[in-house]
């Protein structure tokens, strides 16, 4: 554990819609203990994420031992959070929290294949905390900002591809390249999710701001 703490993985900010599309998982080396990454469609790798949203439902779906599933909703979709005996603290928060409640979760993306072959992405929590609406709103704005930064870098990379004469000085963006190869869904979709998320924060009476478009 101490080894991995030396190069602690950053907790990426990602909305549920993009998180659930991050179905491609990979490692950077053959080492068995090398960290797993989910590939974000906007072109970054995520070993860990920080998310915030509304816990709307909890259910113990375990058979022999407790295995808690929580649904955590953000403005773009739903995170599916699973905590069992190896995440005792997170499991006890899911057991004891009465939905609906705002929560923040630090956790790791996990992919699994369903019987019909679809790949689902879920969140395995390291910690779950009950938070207030201000923390949740701050997360939405922060996540919007980080997502736009990724989209910007992706689009920059894309336009460099179309202008090969500048290739020698072009910024390399290996995760944009990987996302381009692995995913079909256009990056602009996530921009639309960002807009939707930010609009959901706008309070009534702020309508004149719309005119700035």
């Amino acid at each position: 554990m101490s080894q991995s703490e030396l190069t602690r993985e950053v907790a990426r900010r990602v909305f549920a819609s993009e998180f659930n599309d991050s179905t491609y998982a990979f490692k950077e080396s053959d080492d068995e203990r090398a960290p797993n990454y989910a590939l974000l469609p906007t072109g970054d790798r995520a070993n860990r994420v920080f998310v915030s949203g509304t816990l709307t439902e909890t259910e113990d779906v375990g058979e022999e031992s407790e295995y808690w599933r929580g649904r955590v909703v953000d403005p773009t979709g739903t995170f599916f959070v699973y905590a069992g005996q190896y995440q005792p603290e997170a499991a006890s928060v899911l057991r004891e929290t009465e939905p609906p409640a705002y929560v923040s979760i630090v956790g790791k993306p996990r992919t699994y294949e369903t019987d019909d072959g679809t790949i689902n992405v879920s969140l395995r929590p390291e910690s779950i905390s009950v938070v207030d609406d201000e923390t949740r709103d701050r997360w939405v704005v922060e996540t919007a900002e980080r997502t736009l930064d990724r989209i910007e870098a992706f689009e920059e990379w894309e336009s460099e591809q179309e202008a090969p004469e500048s290739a020698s000085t072009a910024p390399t963006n290996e995760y944009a390249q990987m996302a381009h190869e692995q995913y079909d869904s256009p990056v602009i979709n996530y921009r639309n999710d960002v807009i939707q998320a930010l609009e959901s924060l706008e309070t009534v009476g702020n309508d004149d701001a719309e005119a700035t478009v």
Partner: protein
Amino acid sequence: MSDVRQHADDIHAQFSDHIDVDIEDVEERLTTLVDEYKVPMDEARRSVTNHYLEEAGLEREDISGGDSEAATIEDVDEPEEWIDLTAKVIELWDPRSDSVAQVGLLGDPTGTIKFTKWAKSELPALEEGGVYELRNVVTDEYQGRYSVKLNSTTVIEELDEDIEVGNDTSEVEGALVDMQRGSGLIKRCPEEDCTRVLQNGRCNEHGEVEGEFDLRIKAVVDDGIDAHEVIFDKDATEELTGLSLEEAKEMAMDALDTTIVADEIREDIVGTYYRIEGPTFGRYVLADDVEELGGPADPEELLIKARSM
């Protein structure tokens, strides 16, 4: 608009000793470049300044210094300010892009700051450990962190003196995502000048000792780009949690277990946003000044950006 006016003012002040420049004219030239041609402000400024230089038959050196002010590194708290720094090159890093000639860290008695020197500016090379007077550098900001850019108007003069580099204070803003082992109610070695944290009642240096209780938190604050390790000493921990050392001791005594204190604190702070300021010590930031962050900034600006992408 007022921003353009400010820059126009600066340029006007630079030339007022030399030629008769109409401030409205300066402002109009800047506005045309910035609003119509979408040129970044520093480039627009450069272009307009060049125009007047040519008109007046002046060289850049004749006017430089007119608009930039002598500053110290801790003064840097705004992007796009033109300043003069006297600083030491602490470290040079490898540039990640061909457009950058040199990148690294500058220090003066008030702190440290990143600098970038553009390849196209064709400035002389800075050396690690060298002390320089850097006239007319421009400040920049990226996600709350400041840097200075050396540009083609910058004048570099090497000084034959050494300057002391001050304590590097950093500011970290982000979500507290983890509290690490060795947090909460701990015991330290009582030997003079030791203060090591005891592991199972033992000090690494002095063996088995009667420890003294202390409070501290080792946490990770993460902004989605970097994970920073932050240490809260007793005072900072008490302030952050509202839990005093005496109360923590009582709590542990009642539970016959010291770990209850860490559990209590974890529940309180993990998942919350903070802004933390303090000196850096190796890879740690020592929390001097801590502020819990409430609601977000106005999303309007981001919305405009998103809609225009």
